[in-house]
């Protein structure tokens, strides 16, 4: 937790929900806001409005931002998670594998970048024990599960997002190399 204008707000990954994390990243990635606007919008998520900062100097505001952005949580990828007594499997083998099938679904979700897309990406990855592929990839099931995921803590989600990022990065690297190839 971090104290901003005498109010304690969550900033660590084990304190933030996936939904809050999605909202924060959505704002921080929005290029229509400048640096100050972005953080004013982020603080609004936690009930601190722009007017509350009227008597805050720019230097003080910068300190608040720095404190908020200091993440101390160490996170480790969890192979399975439990939601409402049900087991969801993220990694079935030894290491994280992003299957071709999952990638196709994730690529479509990431292309649209709609609100809540990160929890939908995780929803594709985490498979409820005992379901068939047809049931798992059913659009309604993915949407329902992503709602449940939004209430989880972000420290469970982030390691998966990092792993997906690494896999997608491999492709970007190949595309960049390919761009310079002429047979």
């Amino acid at each position, binding site marked *: 937790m971090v104290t901003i204008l005498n109010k304690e707000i969550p900033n660590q990954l084990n304190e933030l929900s996936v939904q809050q994390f999605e909202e924060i990243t959505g704002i921080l990635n929005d290029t229509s806001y400048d640096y100050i606007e972005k953080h004013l919008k982020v603080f609004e998520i936690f009930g601190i409005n722009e007017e509350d900062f009227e008597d805050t100097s720019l230097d003080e505001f910068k300190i608040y931002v720095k404190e908020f952005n200091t993440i101390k949580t160490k996170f480790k990828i969890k192979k399975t998670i439990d939601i409402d007594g049900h087991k969801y499997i993220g990694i079935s083998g030894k290491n994280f*594998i*992003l*299957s*071709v*099938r*999952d*990638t*196709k679904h994730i*690529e*479509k979700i990431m*292309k649209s970048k709609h609100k809540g897309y990160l929890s939908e990406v995780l929803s594709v990855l985490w498979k409820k024990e005992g379901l068939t592929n047809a049931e798992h990839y059913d659009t309604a099931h993915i949407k329902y599960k992503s709602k449940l995921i939004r209430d989880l803590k972000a420290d469970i989600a982030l390691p998966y997002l990092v792993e997906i990022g690494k*896999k997608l990065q*491999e*492709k970007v690297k*190949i*595309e960049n*190399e*390919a*761009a310079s*190839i*002429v*047979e």
Partner: protein
Amino acid sequence: MKLPQSWSDIDVYTFKDIRSLNTIEEPFARDMEIMAVIMDVSVESLDDYDISDLNKEMKKMMFLNSEPSKNFKNNIENYIFKPFEQLTCGEFIDLEYYFSNDYIKHISHIAAIVYKKHKFDEWGNLVYEPYTYNPNNRSEEFDNVCVNDIYGIIPAYLNFRKNFLEKYMLLFEDDPGPEEEDKNTPLSKEDQEHKAAVKWGWERLIYSLCNEDLTKFEEATNLPLILAFNMLSMKKDLNL
């Protein structure tokens, strides 16, 4: 499975398939479809692979991002390449159709026009078969050849076409049409004629070549392209 190392390992049919997949916007989905085409398996059969493995395989096939060889073979099985300068009007018109309607998709049809059966006459001159066949019926024969063997006819023809159109620019130029078409205003007789001329471009040229005698249409399409266009230029210059 042994994956292709270069375009030399890809036939025309597969090349067309691969290029048609370029319309898929999502890079991973596109790669998976390409991989399935190359491996000749269904895309669903790749679903359980790790995407990193697929990336590694795709990395080995970087040549897919380049164009095949710009050189082409003079002989393909029983066929021999007919130089563009020796094309007939009919061949040129059909080539124009295929080039203006996705030349990658129609590369086998294009090859079926420019590669000909041939013989030597009693004087030892090379004689190409007449253009009496339908390229649709022969295109499949070129689907199985290596793409590097025929792809080069595409840039070569485009280059020939550019020079040809420049040389005979006057024949392809019409008076500019109405600047802005107002659907509510009826077209003047002149504008209607202009529209019709654009719509019936090739037919109009051939009609002119056969002196408005439709029974000579086939003869006109069999005329050597260069001769025919020289004649058309002369007719235009002399207002004949």
